[in-house]
């Protein structure tokens, strides 16, 4: 079957070769037992592939797929040559929204694969038909969404057919992502560049975790919408599905709120560094098409300073205290300082407006992240208004934790009243309030999901699971992408990111890698995040028992894929190691 379509170039070793300084003398051979593509020169051999990329398509159990499919993968070693113009889609669904979505992802698929170098392919006899069946009309992407899919590729004569079936459009999208990773460019004997697809395959796939996220911080430094879209692209190619948007912090408040224009007026870095509601709406639909949901975090009561200064002028008193106070080391853990004022009742009215504006930008029922990390007690403990409010109470840590939890309760009330129900899941970072001994006193396990950011050795995630809380794991000493550039932190390279295993108990919704932005902005954020976020993506999707070394060849391939799709993914090795698998 397949081998019949394998078209190989004849190598002519002649003096011309030296003149052109080309490397076209190299061919790749797949050693199936080792799953390795080996670079060879010289011989003309029918089992050789003309490029590493085509060899990688079919070599080893999962070829060049990233993340590795979970249920089952069978790939033939044959390739079917075709022109992208002879690729057709068929959709079985009758539902309008579903079909619209499928058409759009089909367009994206074509855009991803189209290449200027392949415009001269004259092979129009061979056809590829991708048919997609989606079994439900569910358009929502949340923690319950079934993202699994089945995929089968068959070839009969000049016809190649790709059959996809999935329960939801998101499963279908992932299936198409997988198909795109079974296709490569191919230089044929006629001097043309065509595409090839693996001629026979059978894949059954579904993720291990339903929350597979990347956190972007746009408050320490602003990220342009086009930069954020690049990240969404990278996430789509790696089957990550949550963009956790840490959109504000004490440094800046770039989110424009229609009801509260003062937030950006006082808090944005400049008028060009603002996210308008239209930007957010566009980004949400951009992400949805790529199988990614956006969860907004407005961090509070700490990490809230610039943007909140306007209270006194508006007759509302101090909404936040310690704003930009110096010397900052006395009032916060990172400059500039700022912490919401929990004893000002006007704050909760403003919060309700704020939540209302944010909820209006999001899909109905979307979860919300309230932050809740790193409250710095000395700030509150040095604010006369708060000291007066506490009256005779001893100003102990417990008193301030109670004050904090009162804040949290009232903030939740404001949120519920803005959204009009009392069951929207709220995510909070681990903090003093989430310690095992006190969390049940302060936070309801039916309302709050806890995002843990402790080191891998810390038992807190497991302890919270044991108490019945749902968690999202952001293992600090492996999944913090900002580490290695400040203090005593060390950089976690892709192997460390990949090897991080998080709890498997059902309360674990998943995990996130975190890109805090003190030291990145548009210029370096892509290479800081990619391809490492993709390493976490396979952990969260496939959760293989094996470690990074076994995934190396596929991962190196995926990094190249990200680059070829326009994402500035950092280099992992000298190119020689990519071209000579397993030899470094």
């Amino acid at each position, binding site marked *: 079957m397949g081998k019949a379509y394998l078209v190989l170039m004849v190598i002519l070793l002649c003096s011309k070769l030296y003149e052109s300084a080309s490397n076209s003398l190299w061919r790749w051979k797949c050693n199936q037992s080792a799953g390795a593509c080996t670079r060879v020169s010289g011989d003309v051999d029918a089992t050789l592939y003309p490029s590493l990329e085509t060899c990688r398509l079919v070599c080893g159990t999962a070829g060049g797929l990233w993340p590795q499919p979970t249920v089952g993968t069978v790939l033939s070693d044959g390739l079917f040559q075709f022109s992208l113009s002879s690729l057709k889609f068929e959709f079985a669904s009758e539902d309008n929204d579903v079909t619209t979505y499928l058409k759009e992802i089909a367009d994206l698929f074509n855009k991803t694969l189209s290449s200027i170098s392949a415009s001269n392919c004259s092979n129009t006899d061979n056809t590829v038909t991708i048919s997609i069946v989606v079994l439900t009309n569910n358009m929502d992407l949340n923690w319950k969404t079934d993202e699994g899919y089945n995929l089968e590729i068959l070839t009969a004569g000049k016809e190649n057919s790709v059959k996809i079936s999935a329960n939801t459009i998101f499963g279908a999208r992932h299936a198409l992502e997988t198909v795109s990773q079974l296709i490569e460019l191919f230089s044929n004997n006629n001097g043309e560049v065509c595409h090839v697809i693996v001629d026979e395959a059978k894949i059954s796939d579904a993720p291990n975790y339903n929350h597979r996220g990347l956190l972007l911080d746009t408050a320490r430094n602003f990220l342009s919408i086009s930069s954020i879209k690049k990240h969404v692209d990278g996430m789509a190619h790696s089957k990550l599905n949550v963009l956790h948007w840490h959109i504000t912090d004490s440094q800046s408040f770039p989110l424009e709120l229609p009801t509260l224009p003062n937030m950006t007026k006082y808090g944005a870095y400049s008028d060009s560094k603002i996210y308008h509601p239209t930007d957010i709406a566009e980004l949400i639909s951009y992400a949805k098409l790529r199988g990614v949901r956006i969860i907004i975090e407005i961090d509070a009561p700490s990490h809230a300073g610039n943007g909140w200064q306007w209270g006194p002028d508006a007759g509302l008193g101090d909404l936040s205290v310690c704003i930009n106070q110096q010397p900052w080391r006395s009032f916060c853990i990172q400059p500039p300082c700022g912490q919401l004022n929990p004893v000002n009742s006007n704050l909760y009215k403003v919060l309700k407006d704020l939540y209302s504006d944010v909820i209006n930008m999001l899909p109905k029922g979307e979860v919300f992240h309230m932050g809740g990390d790193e409250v710095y007690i000395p700030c509150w403990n040095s604010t006369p208004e708060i000291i007066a409010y506490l009256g005779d109470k001893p100003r102990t840590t417990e008193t301030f934790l109670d004050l904090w939890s009162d804040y949290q309760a009232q903030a939740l009330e404001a949120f519920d009243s803005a959204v009009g129900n009392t069951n929207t899941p709220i995510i909070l970072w681990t903090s003093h309030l989430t310690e095992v001994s006190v969390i049940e006193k302060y936070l309801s396990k039916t309302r709050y999901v806890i995002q843990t950011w402790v080191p891998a050795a810390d038992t807190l995630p497991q302890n919270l699971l044991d108490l019945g809380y749902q968690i999202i794991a952001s293992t600090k000493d492996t999944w913090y992408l900002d580490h290695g550039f400040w203090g005593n932190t060390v950089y976690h390279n892709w192997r460390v990111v990949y090897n991080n295993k998080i709890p498997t108990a059902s309360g674990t919704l998943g995990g996130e890698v975190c890109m805090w932005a003190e030291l990145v902005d548009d*210029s370096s954020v892509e290479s800081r995040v990619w391809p490492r976020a993709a390493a976490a993506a396979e952990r969260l999707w496939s959760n293989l028992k094996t470690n990074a070394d076994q995934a190396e060849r596929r991962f190196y391939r995926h990094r190249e894929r990200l680059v070829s799709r326009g994402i*500035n993914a950092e*280099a992992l090795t000298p190119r020689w190691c990519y071209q000579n698998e397993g030899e470094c």
Partner: protein
Amino acid sequence: MKKTRQFSDSCSSVMFVMFVMSCFLVLFSYTDSLSHVNNALRIQNTFFSEAENDEFEVVRYTWKCESNKCVRYHTNTQEVSLNTCNMMCSQPSLWPKPEKVIVTYKNSTVIDKTRISFNFSTQWQVYNMLINTTDLFKRNLELLKPGNQTTPRATLHIIISIQDTTTDKLKLGTNEKYHLVVENNDNLEAVIVAETYFGARHALETLSQLIWYDDVIDELRILHNVDIIDSPKFPHRGVMIDTARNYFPLDLIKKVVDGMAMSKLNVLHLHVTDAVSFPIVLPRVKQLAAFGAYGRDMIYSPEDIKNLVQYSLTRGIKVLLEVDAPGHVNAGWNFAGESLNKKYVICGESDILNGHLNPDNDEALLVLEDIYNDLLELSGYNEMFHMGSDEVNLTCWKGTQAVKTKKAENSMKQFWASYTNQMLERLKIANDGRYPDHIIMWSSPLTESSELDTLDVKVTIQHWLGNPSSILRRGHKVIYSTVGQWYLDCGFGMWKPSMTSGVCDPYTPWQKFYKHRPWVINGYRELALGGEVCLWTEEVEVDSLETRIWPRSAAFAERVWSDPDTMNDYDVYSRLVSFVDRLRSRGIKSSAMWPRWCSQNPGKC
């Protein structure tokens, strides 16, 4: 954003234009302090607040100079831009810091980017280079994105005089000193006096940093009543890029050159080949690239190199091409055949990184001579030559016939020295029978040992690892590239599974690049030619080349240009942040130094 557009629409109205002009009359008749500038601009603000009263969501900040620091304030209308405050408040934002800056009055004028006049002689040999440089100067102003400039602004007259009008090559002894005076008496004039083209070029770079974009008025301003005398503390100020571990297209390397020119760095050292690839096409030995390049689109042709050399020279930079040997060779070398004595390189089969020139094949040295010939021709420069000589693994050579023959009377290190002498002999032949003045080698066990004295030439050492005291005691010139201080690649962990940790972790922040003074630590200041920051590229490709280099190489640039004794945090941070903005305005990618809030609030982080 929409609001901004309305804002600028109103700017273009006739009434506004007339008003602003009158403001400037008021503004620039004052010549002492910034407080006057503030007063003058406040009149302008009244106008804005009336016109823009209801535009509430537009972000507006103003900066006031308080105790020589710029402090951010909130305002409904902008008054003084951060750039303007930074230039006018304390020290003008120049990078690297000139030797001597005298500002007689803190004063500025709005200039017309379309009317820059230059005055220098067409008779000079360096005339064409100057024309290129002045074109660049004008283009760089364009990149600062001033507004449409529909009304007349001051014309800037630039008068350049050069004493030695024939020196068009940059050498170690080339005088880079300049004197720049900017005055606004009858005319707005910048007078540049330099010994050579290269000094004049630096002066124009400094002049361009006296001009900034003021976003309040959407115009370019120039600081005047300034007198600057400047020259570098060290003659060799370099950036090394490894183009072998991963390949970088020529255009990207040119962008690095652009940033180097802005920083007054003057040596681009390309570690052009290594064991894993050989991307440079050498006319005498094309096979090396044919077999050793990563791909047909991953080569540097002879024309590319010549082009880069000229491009760099215009920017005051010379190109050093290093083909490392006798270690760090492999890819491309064994094109000749398979039999043992025909192999140019041995030991590279089981480990790609361990290839060494084959001492049993004398032809390897002949190939090296061809390489040296080509490198000397392509770089058009033979005062300095880099031979590599990095990390020779002597166990590789142990089994060779050459070693066995000599071993009785010689140690392995002696063998290494004698092989190096053979290489030096090939270099001498390639260089028309005489050694280049400065032959550079990486520091190694050889250069740290007494065998260094047995080399036929007193070589210059590029010192990266270990204690340089024995090298210095022996009186060798040194170029510092201290690992852990001036290495740009460290901190990204191991790149192959067999490594247990990254070679030189952790990451080195820019502050360390700035503070490192090896000539103070090691003494022998007179032997230090300068330094180079090194970017080895195992974990770097196109995507992160620039952000690895900037702003850290700029921090280093001030070290080797100005070598300041102390570091005043406020001064250094605020000038470097301004410089990073300038890099970005010219399309060069630089890593962020901190949250933008810290740039907007100088001294508060």
